[in-house]
């Protein structure tokens, strides 16, 4: 066997990559071939140098850069709350911001829609119609800023109407409290009345005297404010009854 055929084997031999049998053959050849021993020495020197240079580790900066990028991407996917990278990951995504904007917009629209719906009671009061305070020329003093629901009582007997309001027969309102106000004085609407702050609104309500369901002849001729608590604790309906208004007199028996 000539030396050229041994070259490849010697290249494997320096790395310890030969099976035992071939290794012995190479060693036997090296023992008697000087040029192959020189080749072996040169290959070993190259091997050492190669391992030293190519085996050098990449810089910490490079490693950290990859680490941050990978973990950032992964936390983007998992949205792991415990991650220090989660905000980097999330904030980099433009769709997150778009989704957040859409979500806020949608909830605003929903809120608006639902608050409109809430002013109209359901169930036995389906026939209720709403009108704004501005639309009404005859408002009790300190007109409420909210849309007032004017309810037509269901075509029941007077006693049943009362039962509805107190929640005994109807599904809603589940509870009712009647407030009555003495006197009939009313002021003209002022811009302030139309757009009062919540504080003013609360003051207006505080001016109404709580009362049980009016049964006296006398009481039914006074302005009434009925506050109804529905199943939804966030929904409170005020029913204002003007004592001298023709149609509200129909509610005397309430």
């Amino acid at each position, binding site marked *: 066997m000539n030396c050229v055929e041994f*070259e490849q084997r010697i290249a494997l031999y*320096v790395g310890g990559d030969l099976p035992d049998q071939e290794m012995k053959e190479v060693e036997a050849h090296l023992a008697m071939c000087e040029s192959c021993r020189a080749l072996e020495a040169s290959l070993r020197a190259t091997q050492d140098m190669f391992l030293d240079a190519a085996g050098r580790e990449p810089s910490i900066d490079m490693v950290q850069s990859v680490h941050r990028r990978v973990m950032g991407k992964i936390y983007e996917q998992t949205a792991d709350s415990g991650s220090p990278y989660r905000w980097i990951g999330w904030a980099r995504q433009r769709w997150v911001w778009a989704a957040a904007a859409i979500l806020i917009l949608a909830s605003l629209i929903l809120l608006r829609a639902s608050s409109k719906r809430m002013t109209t009671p359901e169930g036995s009061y389906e026939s209720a119609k709403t009108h704004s305070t501005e639309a009404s020329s005859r408002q009790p003093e300190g007109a409420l800023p909210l849309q007032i629901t004017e309810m037509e009582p269901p075509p029941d007997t007077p006693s049943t109407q009362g039962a509805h309001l107190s929640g005994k027969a109807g599904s809603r309102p589940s509870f009712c409290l009647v407030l009555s106000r003495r006197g009939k004085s009313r002021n003209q609407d002022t811009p302030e009345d139309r757009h009062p702050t919540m504080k003013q609104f609360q003051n207006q309500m505080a001016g109404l005297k709580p009362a049980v369901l009016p049964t006296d002849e006398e009481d039914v001729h006074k302005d009434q404010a009925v506050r109804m608590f529905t199943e939804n604790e966030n929904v409170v309906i005020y029913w204002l009854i003007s004592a001298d208004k023709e149609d509200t007199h129909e509610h005397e028996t309430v």
Partner: protein
Amino acid sequence: MNIDPGGALLARSVCPSGWERLNRMRELLLSAQAGDTKAFETVMQSFEVRIIRFAWRQLGDRDEALDASQEIFLRLYRYLHRIDPDRDPGPWIFSIAVNVCRTSARKRGRHRLEPITESMEEGDALVSMDALPYDRMGQMEMVREGLAELTPKEREAILLRDVEGFSTRVVATILRSSEGTVRSHISRARLKLKAFRDEYSRRRV
């Protein structure tokens, strides 16, 4: 004699610390597969230096190596469920690395590395290049240029065998090739590097 890093059985019988390492890795892999991101992070940490080094040497370009390394670990995360926790994940991770680097090189549209003419890329390494002795700098440059002289397959084989220390059998598994082919690539690569070194020394003199 090289200990096969991919041989779990060998590590278990010969090297107790290797057995402990594998056992710990097994637990980490199981946790990571169960969705523990921190466990995955630890698995990644134990491979990132080697993987980035491999990608850099294989591709010869720092930025390409950064992108490839990122892709390698994201793929590792994506295919985590396919790993057998009872085996050393090293060969499996390196087979991902090989595939990603091949794709990266294909995208670049060149199969051989351009010899890098700019000064030491390891300049941002722990040791400043100015502090390195001249012959060391020469070695780095020479090895880089020498690696660029190899075919991609020869480079893969020599890096996995000599730098990463996998046995020829494991290298064959990683490269989805036969052990004979791998040996052939390795011996050719070593001879080419030796010839390049001889030539390089002559040029310098």
